[in-house]
C-alpha cells in the first residue's frame, strides 16, 4: 500500500487560545475509505480545512502524494477535492457553469466530455441548465460533489456528506463513494452517523477534543473492542436466575424469558459450551439463541466517555 496523505503532529490554535488540533498524526493509504468520527467541536472539520488549505496550521506538516501543502500547495491541492459540510453554492449560477468553474479553478481547461460524465454519474445531467436555486437540497449536495470531482482529485474529503439528507439519498451517496473507491479515489469522510462508517469505511478514526484517539481497521476495531452477547430465549419464563447459573454472570430480561450472557470474543475460552450445558442441566428449555455484537456506535460512545466497550 502507498501512503497518499501523511499528517505529522498537526496543531492548530486560534487567536483566542483555543486548541482545535493538538498534534494529530495520521497516514492514509491510497484507495482506502477512512471515516473520522467525533462529537461536535472535536476538530474533524478543522483537520479537513487545514489539509485543504482553508485554515493555516499553527505547526506540523501535511503531504499529499508527497507534496507539502504549504511549500508545494499547487501540486498538493490539485490532488484534493473537498465537499464541505454546509451547502455553499452561488444560487443564480447554472449547474454546468459552476462545475466548469471548479474545473478551471484547479487549472484544467473546460472538458465538456469530462463534465458530462461527472454530471451523468451524479444524476445531474437533466439539471445541467438549471440555476442552482431551483434545485432541491439533495441535488445541491450532488452539485457540491460534482464540483469537488471536476478536477479529478485523487483524495476526496467529504465533510458530513449525508447530514440532513433522506435515507434514499444517503444510500445513493454510499453508492457514489463505493464507485469512487473502485476508481482508486482515496476518501476521507467525517460523519455523525456511525452506521455510515460501519457501512462504507475501511478504517475508522476517532477524534475528540483535538486529539486522534484511535485509528483502526473497522473490522479489527469491532472485533477487538466489541463485546459479544448471547441471548438465550427460554420456552417458559422464569422468576429468577437459578443458583447453578450464578457463575456465568447472566442477566434476565424484563419478561423473564431470556438470559443474556456477555463474553469476550478474544478470550481463549468463551464459556459458551459450559453455559449451554448448565442451562440444560438447570432444566430450562431453549426456544432460540441469538448473538449480538457491539455496534461501532457503542464503541465510539464508550471511547469518548473513556470507558471500555
Amino acid at each position, binding site marked *: 500500500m502507498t501512503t497518499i496523505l501523511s499528517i505529522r503532529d498537526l496543531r492548530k490554535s486560534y487567536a483566542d487560545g483555543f486548541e482545535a488540533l493538538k498534534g494529530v498524526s495520521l497516514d492514509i493509504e491510497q484507495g482506502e475509505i477512512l471515516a473520522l468520527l467525533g462529537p461536535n467541536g472535536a476538530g474533524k472539520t478543522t483537520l479537513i480545512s487545514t489539509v485543504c488549505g482553508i485554515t493555516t496550521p499553527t505547526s506540523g506538516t501535511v503531504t499529499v502524494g508527497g507534496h507539502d501543502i504549504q511549500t508545494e500547495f499547487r501540486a498538493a491541492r490539485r490532488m484534493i477535492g473537498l465537499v464541505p459540510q454546509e451547502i455553499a*453554492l452561488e444560487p443564480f449560477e447554472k449547474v454546468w457553469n459552476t462545475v466548469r468553474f471548479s474545473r478551471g479553478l*484547479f487549472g484544467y481547461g473546460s472538458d465538456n466530455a469530462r463534465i458530462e460524465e461527472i454530471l451523468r454519474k451524479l444524476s445531474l445531467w437533466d439539471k445541467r441548465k438549471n440555476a442552482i436555486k431551483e434545485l432541491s437540497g439533495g441535488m445541491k449536495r450532488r452539485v457540491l460533489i460534482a464540483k469537488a470531482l471536476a478536477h479529478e482529485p485523487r483524495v476526496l474529503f467529504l465533510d458530513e456528506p449525508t447530514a440532513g439528507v433522506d435515507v434514499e439519498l444517503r444510500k445513493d451517496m454510499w453508492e457514489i463513494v463505493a464507485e469512487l473507491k473502485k476508481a482508486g479515489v482515496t476518501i476521507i469522510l467525517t460523519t455523525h452517523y456511525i452506521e455510515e462508517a460501519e457501512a462504507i469505511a475501511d478504517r475508522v478514526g476517532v477524534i475528540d477534543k483535538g486529539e486522534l484517539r484511535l485509528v483502526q481497521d473497522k473490522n479489527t476495531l469491532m472485533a477487538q473492542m466489541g463485546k459479544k452477547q448471547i441471548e438465550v430465549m427460554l420456552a417458559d419464563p422464569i422468576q429468577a436466575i437459578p443458583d447453578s447459573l450464578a457463575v456465568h454472570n447472566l442477566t434476565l430480561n424484563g419478561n423473564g424469558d431470556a438470559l443474556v450472557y456477555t463474553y469476550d470474543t478474544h478470550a481463549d475460552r468463551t464459556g459458551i459450551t459450559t453455559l449451554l450445558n448448565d442451562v440444560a442441566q438447570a432444566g430450562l428449555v431453549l426456544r432460540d439463541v441469538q448473538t449480538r455484537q457491539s455496534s461501532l456506535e457503542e464503541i465510539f460512545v464508550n471511547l469518548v466517555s473513556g470507558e471500555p466497550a
Partner: protein
Amino acid sequence: MNWSAIAAIYRFEMARFFRTLAQSFLSPVLSTSLYFVVFGTAIGSRIQEVEGVSYGAFIVPGLIMLSVVMLAISNASFGIYFPKFLGTIYELLSAPVNFIEIVIGYVGAAATKSLFVGLVILVTATFFVDIRIEHPFAMAAFLILSCLSFSLLGFIVGIWASNFEQISLVPQLVVTPLIFLGGTFYSISMLPPVWQTITLFNPVVYLISGFRWSFYGLADVPIGFSLLAILVFTGTCLAVIGWIFKTGWRIRS
C-alpha cells in the same frame, strides 16, 4: 501562473454582469443621462463656459469618473464579498491559486465592467453635448487606471466587510463626498483660496483633473501630479491586498 483559474474567475464574474444587465448597465446610463438633463441642459444653460468649454461638456469627464469609480468599487467588493457571504469562498481557498491570480480574476472582471460602463457613458454623453478628446491615449490610460485602482479598493472593501451594509458604506460615505467635492461639477479655481488649498488633500481632485485634461487640455493640478497620484493609489491598494493575503486577514483563519 494558473491561467485557467484566472479565466474561470473572470468568466464567472462577467457572467454575473450579464445576468444583471439592467442593474449593471442601464442604471448608470439612466442616472448619467439625468445628470446631463439637469446639470448640462436645465441648469448648465444658465452657467457660463468654463475656460472656453460649455458647462455640459465640462462635467463629462467628472461624470464618467463618478460612475466608473462607484461601479468599480461596488463590483469588486460584491464580487469577493458574495463568496464570503455564501460560503463558496472555501473553493477559492482550497484551489491551487495564489493571491495574485485571485486578484487578477476578480479585479480584472470588476475593472472590465466599469470600463465598459465608462465607455457607454462617454457615448451617451455625445448625444447631449459636443465632446472633444485632445489626448486620447492619456484619456484611455486614466480611464483604465481608474477602473483598476478603484476595483482594487473595492476588493479590499469586500474582504473587510462583514455585512452588506459595510459594502455600501465606503462608496456612499467616503467616495461619493470625495468625488462631488473633487471637482466633478466645477473647476477648483472657482473656489475661495482657502478651499482650493484644502481641496488639494482630496485625492480624487488629481484623478478628475488629469482625466479632464485628457479631454480639453484643462487641468486644476499639473498632469504629472495626477499621474503620480493614481500610481501611488494603485500601489497602495496592491500593497494592502498583498498584506491581506499574506496574513489571511478576514479570509483564512
